[in-house]
């Protein structure tokens, strides 16, 4: 797997996106803190954090006896540079408009 593969795989799961969003709001959290916001076993949360760490989206640091989890946005930036910049903003916004229009029709 390439670095990009790992990032896309990590982001392809709602629980992992939720964990990233929680760290975005407040960085440097312990497993216990993150676990308290999810209806999931400690082991399940650890597994998700491991996938995020493997994708370099989460970096852990020791602080005394605690292990703190930090959101690392660099891989997302690299994907943005690689994939979003390539397809010009104009085309992306045209697609976003099309989506909004189609979803409006369906409603």
């Amino acid at each position: 797997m390439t670095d990009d593969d790992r990032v896309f795989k990590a982001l392809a799961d709602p629980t992992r996106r939720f964990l990233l969003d929680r760290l975005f709001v407040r960085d440097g959290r312990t497993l216990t803190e993150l676990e308290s916001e999810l209806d999931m076993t400690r082991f399940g949360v650890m597994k998700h954090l491991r996938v995020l760490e493997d994708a370099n989206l989460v970096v852990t640091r020791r602080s005394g006896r605690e292990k703190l989890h930090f959101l690392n946005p660099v891989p997302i930036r690299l994907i943005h540079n690689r994939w979003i910049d390539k397809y010009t903003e104009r085309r992306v916004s045209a697609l976003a408009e099309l989506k909004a229009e189609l979803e409006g029709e369906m409603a």
Partner: protein
Amino acid sequence: MSTTQTQTSTQVYRVYIKATPQAIWDAITAPEWTRKYGYGGSVEYDLRPGGSYRVIASAEAMAMGSTEIMVDGEVIEADPPHKLVQTWRMLMSEAVAAEGFSRLTYEIKEGKGGVTKLTVIHDMPDAPGMAVMVSGGLEDQGAGGGWNWILSDLKSLLETGESMQWQGDAGPPDQDG
């Protein structure tokens, strides 16, 4: 809610770069390299404990309203090409400059296959303005994308020879004349 909401004052960034630790060390500490990525300033490092650190703005950054010295500080520990610890004060905004010095650590660790791990740990107690700026929170106002952007640009420069550089609100520099 019973959870404690102590705001952490530390930001951690990590990037894997296909380059030697020495190349990454040089890219952080040598002005001929720092001019080529991120905010494009020229660093001046006296790489020993207590040594001074300054970043001199490029002409382009000055034209966009940067102060002549963008950042200053003092070296705490220099262990080339593995670890650099220093103080760091942002001078480009008066409000952020007033927040004073933060503590910045670069850790460079060689990995497998010629890939090196670069970790930046930025401790900013009592510096909310600096925290927003270095996290790229003011990028849409032309303030650049902070560490996230600097490090992805550094990776791009070392791996492909190309970088994106800060253009603020001004767009590409005028090449005419």
